[in-house]
Structures are given as C-alpha cells and as structure tokens.
C-alpha cells in the first residue's frame, strides 16, 4: 500500500455550500506503552473518541495472527484522537498509534496522509519505541524523536539517544515534557520544520507491512 498517496486535504477555495471547507492535516504520536502519548495529545488539543470496528481484511494478513480464530471477522478498537482548530480554517488531528500488535492494521489507516510522526521515547526503556521507529522508517514517514523527560528519569544527551536508537544523523531529537503545552508545541513545530526542510532521507520503502 502506498502510504504517501494522501497528504492532507487543501480543498479548492469556494467549494461547499453550508460553510467553508476545512483544510485537514494529521500527525501521528507514537511510542511505547505508557510513554505519554495520550498525555501529549491532551495537553495541546481537544480529545474526542473514535470507535472502529474493522473487518480483518487482507490488509491485516501477516499482521493480525488469526490462526485458530477463523470465525472472528472484525476487531474493535476504541481510541481517542486530538483535534486543534485554527482560525485559518485548518484542522490538525493528532492520532496516537495503538500499542498492541493486534492493532497494527490501524497504523496503516492512521499513517495514510500523515504529515509525519512524533516518536515519544522514555530514557528508562528506549527499546519500547523500536517498533514505531521501524514502522516509520519502512513506510517512509518522516519522524522525529521526542524524549519525554519524566521526573527522575535519567537524562541523556541527544547524541547518546541517537546511538541507542541507531538513528541517522538527520533525525531530530528533541527533549520535552508531554505535560507542558509549550513543550508539546515545540515538539510539533520541530516535526513540521523537519518535514519542510526536505532534509530527511528519501523514502526508501513505501510498503508499511510487506513481504520484507
């Protein structure tokens, strides 16, 4: 699946009868369980619920392990998303990526058209964000690392974190606090600036989950 087919909607001006048409964009917030994804989203945006009950289609073959549960044809995910409406008519959505492996199919759904992703890392357990980094590298989605500086967590220099995560020199690493609005704002700004800079590596692989 080509994850880069869509890149946010900027409708032509003058469309729509019952009100102006919003421009829409989305950013993914990813990272290990309990790293502060929901906190980050709630710090800067209005949180709304989203219910999905998706058929397990061929999209999830090789992702959802359905051996032995052939009768189950749908899987339910209750999730939240964040929404920030701007006076310009832009609506920015923040989607936290679900943690459990059985919800990998949702990642593709969320990733289509995303501007990029913030991978939240906790220095006490950096390995928790490996899966997210892998996913975004493989699907060619630009991402930055935001180190959520918890109280009492060991502090590391960004370059130590880069080594621990085996990241290329181009991936920005920012330190932040998911509870602080200004900090979250800076994290998101860093991501957008990074995407705009064109400094990132060209997309190597377009398939998110493939034969590879």
């Amino acid at each position, binding site marked *: 699946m080509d994850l*880069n*087919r*869509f*890149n*946010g*909607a*900027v*409708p032509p001006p003058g*469309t*729509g*009868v*019952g*009100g*102006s*048409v*919003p*421009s*829409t*964009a*989305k950013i993914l917030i990813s990272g290990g369980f309990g790293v502060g994804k*929901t*906190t980050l989203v*709630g710090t*800067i945006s209005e*949180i*709304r*619920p*989203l*219910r*999905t*009950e*998706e*058929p397990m*289609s061929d999209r999830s073959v090789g992702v959802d392990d359905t051996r032995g549960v052939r009768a189950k*044809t*749908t899987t*339910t995910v*209750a999730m*939240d*998303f964040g*929404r*920030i409406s*701007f006076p*310009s008519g*832009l*609506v*920015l*959505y923040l989607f936290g990526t679900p943690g459990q492996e059985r919800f990998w199919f949702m990642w593709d*759904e*969320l990733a*289509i*058209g995303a*501007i990029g992703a913030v991978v939240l890392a906790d220095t006490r357990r950096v390995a928790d964000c490996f899966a997210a980094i892998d996913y975004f590298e493989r699907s060619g989605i630009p991402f930055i690392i935001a180190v959520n500086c918890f109280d009492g967590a060991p502090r590391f220099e960004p370059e130590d974190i880069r080594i621990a995560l085996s990241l290329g020199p181009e991936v920005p690493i920012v330190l932040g606090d998911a509870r602080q*609005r200004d900090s979250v*704002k800076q994290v998101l*700004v860093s991501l*957008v*600036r990074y*995407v*705009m800079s064109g400094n990132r590596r060209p997309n190597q692989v377009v398939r998110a989950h493939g034969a590879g």
Partner: protein
Amino acid sequence: MTGHDSHGDRWFDREAGPVVRPYAVTKGRTLPSGGASFGLIDVVIATSERQPEFLRLGPEHRRILSLCRRPTPIVDLTSEIDLPLGVVRVLLGDLASEGMVRVLSTQKQPVTDERLLRMVLDGLESL
C-alpha cells in the same frame, strides 16, 4: 475498557453495548460500494436534499446527511455519530454513489503540500 475518565486515561463507557451489531446497519456489508476508499481526514459535504434513486435511506444515512450540511471531516463525523469507522464508510459509499454527498479526497501527491505544511507551522506557532 470501563467508564473511568481520569485525565490522560480516557475510555468511553460502552458497557451496555450496541443494541444492534454494528454491521447490521450496513446489511452486513463491510466495504463501501463501488470500491470507494475514504481517508480519515477526507472532508464530506452533503450536496443534495433530493430523494435518492436506488437507495432506501436509513436513519444512519439521515444522520450523516444532517451532520454533513457543514463540510465535515470523516473522523469528526464518525466520532459524532458514534458508529464504527468501517460502518460510516459503507454508509458514505451509499450516499456518494447516489450523489448525495461529495467526499473531498486528500491530496495524492507523493510530497506533502507546501501550502498545507506552512498552514500547520503557522498555526502551531501561533498557539
């Protein structure tokens, strides 16, 4: 998944469960007709008040039409009417094939639109 709603750990209480299985309102269909694919942040607009030609409108169709009088992103629509995303997509497919809604698809370029990025950056910096 119970109903506690503390900050930062928010779940919405659905303990009662739906009265009808979700895909019953789509008559068991799990994919939109005509192979349409609707992205989460595509914007839906109701285009017509006329009666559909081939479709028998259900109450869920009507709710979608009523919400989409104002251009509404699919993710907001889904959140608002509290049906699963997959169900909303099927119902949207019905309405789109009757020409009763228009879905403004997000852009298809491989490179993110500079204008959109600039809007996002300006917006974030103004927060």
